[in-house]
């Protein structure tokens, strides 16, 4: 009897901990998973939040059965809400969204261009406190409005919006044309440090592509024009037609909390190179045998670059030592770059072009925009004994006068599946 009574007493004690999960049960069928959040300035010192919610497959199947005319299956549901902060926007949105909105699977945080130029710290500071918001979310700055960008999320090859985002935002996957680290964590860490230039992926909506109006120009009218280098463009200006009406190309640079400008894809790759975050990718260069032609090299870093800082009171000099290697993968030239003398010529030309490009991006970001995108400040900080001394130095005010030196070397390793150039039979000369 005593044992029975003890067992009965033990039941509520054992049962209560097991019931503690009831309040926070998450039923996926009742949830609306927000994939992307976009922010634009609102009319009354507030904001307009645009949400892209993953369309549940059951709803899609029901909708697909009724549609006719072969319209594209909708994989995201987009709506906008005006509010002072994200939590208020979610609360207000709940009044017309049946499922419970949740940020636990969000992939992207999109900042509209006008908001980015005004200052993003109020938005970030509010969002970072949210317990559902993860610091691994990617941050994108879009040209134009964020709601336009989110409305343009219409993948053509993917039905899984989660997969599409993960593939599009992985720099390893998309040819390294975006900053290697563009997550919220990297963004806010850079923003919170004095002088550092936070960077995000740059994107743009392409309404011309969506309307089918984009046309690549016909046969060149100017036969004397040099071949353009594709990497020297920004998102939104790529000459293309078809596919998803969104470009991810290049980066947006911030000085403090305000966006100060854009970098092209090529400049972004150079930035990644100097930061030690170079992802193997294809780079185009001017052909040393004919400046009008380009050649492509699959480039990779031999090792992480060395950055050395010399500080003499307020004068700072930074030197970068970069070692790159690559495989020649595309060339229009009639010159055989596999021959030693031509290989040397190519390597020297590539080194010069890399030096020229990195000088330009250093001048643009440090001397023109006064922003440190290369984490030079981390090394400068090491020369101070205490944090108080470092903050008193005011690194931002010294960026413009910072001198730099570049030591860039390139080695060609391989030449693809062709040894010499392809030559028309009638023009071949055997000597």
């Amino acid at each position, binding site marked *: 009897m005593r044992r029975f009574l003890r067992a009965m007493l033990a039941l509520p*004690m*054992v049962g*209560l*901990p097991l019931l*503690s*999960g*009831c*309040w*926070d049960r998450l039923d996926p069928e009742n949830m609306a998973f927000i994939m992307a959040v976009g922010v634009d300035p609102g009319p009354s010192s507030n904001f307009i939040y645009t949400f892209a919610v993953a369309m549940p497959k059951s709803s899609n199947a029901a909708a697909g059965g009724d549609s006719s005319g072969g319209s594209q299956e909708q994989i995201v549901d987009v709506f906008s809400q005006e509010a002072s902060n994200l939590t208020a926007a979610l609360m207000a949105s709940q009044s017309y969204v049946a499922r419970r909105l949740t940020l636990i699977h969000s992939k992207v945080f999109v900042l509209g261009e006008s908001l980015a130029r005004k200052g993003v710290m109020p938005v970030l500071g509010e969002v970072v406190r949210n*317990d559902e918001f*993860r*610091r*691994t979310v990617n941050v994108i700055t879009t040209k134009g409005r964020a709601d336009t960008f989110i409305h343009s999320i219409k993948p053509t090859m993917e039905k899984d919006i989660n997969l599409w985002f*993960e593939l599009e935002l*992985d720099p390893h996957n998309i040819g390294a044309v975006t900053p290697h*680290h563009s997550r919220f*964590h*990297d963004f*806010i*860490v850079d923003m*919170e*440090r004095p002088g550092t230039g936070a960077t995000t992926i740059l994107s743009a909506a392409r309404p011309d592509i969506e309307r089918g109006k984009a046309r690549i120009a016909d046969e060149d009218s100017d036969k004397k024009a040099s071949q353009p280098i594709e990497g020297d463009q920004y998102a939104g200006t790529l000459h293309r037609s078809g596919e998803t009406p969104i470009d991810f190309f290049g980066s947006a640079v911030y000085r403090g909390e305000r966006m100060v400008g854009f970098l092209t894809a090529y400049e972004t790759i150079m930035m990644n190179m100097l930061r030690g975050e170079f992802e193997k990718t294809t780079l185009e260069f001017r052909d040393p045998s004919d400046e009008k032609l380009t050649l492509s090299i699959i480039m990779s870093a031999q090792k992480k670059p060395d950055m050395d800082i010399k500080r003499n009171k307020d004068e700072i000099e930074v030197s970068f030592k970069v070692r790159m290697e690559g495989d020649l993968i595309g060339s229009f030239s009639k010159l055989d770059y596999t021959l030693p003398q031509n290989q040397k010529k190519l390597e020297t030309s590539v080194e010069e072009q890399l030096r020229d490009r990195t000088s330009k991006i250093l001048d643009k970001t440090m001397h023109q925009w006064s922003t440190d995108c290369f*984490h030079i400040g*981390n*090394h400068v*900080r*090491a020369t*101070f*004994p*205490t*944090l*108080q*001394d*470092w903050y008193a130095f005011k690194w931002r005010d010294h960026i413009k006068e910072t001198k730099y030196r570049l030591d860039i070397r390139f080695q060609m390793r391989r030449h693809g599946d062709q040894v010499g150039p392809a030559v028309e039979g009638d023009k071949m000369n055997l000597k």
Partner: protein
Amino acid sequence: MNTHRIGVRETASIGIIFIIAKIFLPFQRSLAEIGGTAAWIIALIAAMLCPLTWWSIRGVLRHASGGSTLIEATEEIWGPWLGTIWNLVYFTFFFTITFLVLREFSELLASDILPRTPMNIIMIAMLIPIAVVAYAGLEAIGRFCWSAAGLIVASVVIVLMGGLMTHFEPDALLPFWGTGRSQVLSLGLVKSSLFSEMLVFGFLLPRLRKTSQWPKAAWWCMSVSAFTIFITTFVYLFVFPYPTAIRLNVPMFELSRLVIFGRWIQRLESVFLISWLICAVVKLAIGLYCSAATLSQMMKLPKVQPVIFPLALLVYACSILPGSEMEAVLWDGQYLRTYGSLVSIGIPMLTWLLGMIKSKLKGQQT
């Protein structure tokens, strides 16, 4: 009365879990707030002062009757009145650790994991297994700790490595002296309270079979605890560099949330939470057991068990005293982790000193 014995591994594991459970609370953030980039130096200095607790407890136990716990030895050396006062201080110390840590862990669960669950349900759901484990006795606690310690330390190491591979800031520990040399050095002395939980050895050492096992258990505990506390602070600064380091609510949890390798390895925090909650429950069980053991020995009760459940109720009542999460963290940082070393080092040292004097006087008389 049958005194249950425990081995060296169980003893060391109890000490390790009792000390390192604080790494899942905002302890790294509080070190970064006061030390800046030199928070790791504070942790290092605190670890170097940790053996003082061990030596003073050993000294106290050596100058008392064989098999006495710290509580019995304190009363024997100081006498019934002063001894009881010091024992009350010990009781307050263990009790404060228990209810404050219960509150902090419950706040962590309420803010990030179970936001819709009422706080009292979370606390009761934790308190029930804590009370049951404490009721089972020191031997059961020791075996449980031995089986869980490896899992907990391994999960911490995996999270740290994952965090470093996801985001690593070079030169994150510079400037070397952080907020200032004198501040860092002095706070290192004050924050020796981080290892105050070593006081549990006052209950554990008499349970070991041989006196020769005491140093082995103590040094294993101190080494692993010091390493864990130091390495979590060290790595935290690399993954969340200053000033981001001073803004996060729960550093280890945020670190685990940050871990991401491609598409397949991400969102691992729920996996680690299991082992961390086990660590929290075990720590609180040890704290409750120590509080109950102190009280029962002060009152000369033959058993600890009758006091466990009433004390558990008292822990629940006191854990709702802080008005908010910020107040609970403030009490922990400003009082427990500032003055804790006075209890864990100061009182045992004084007791040891008095014990030595009394032994010498007794020796002279005979």
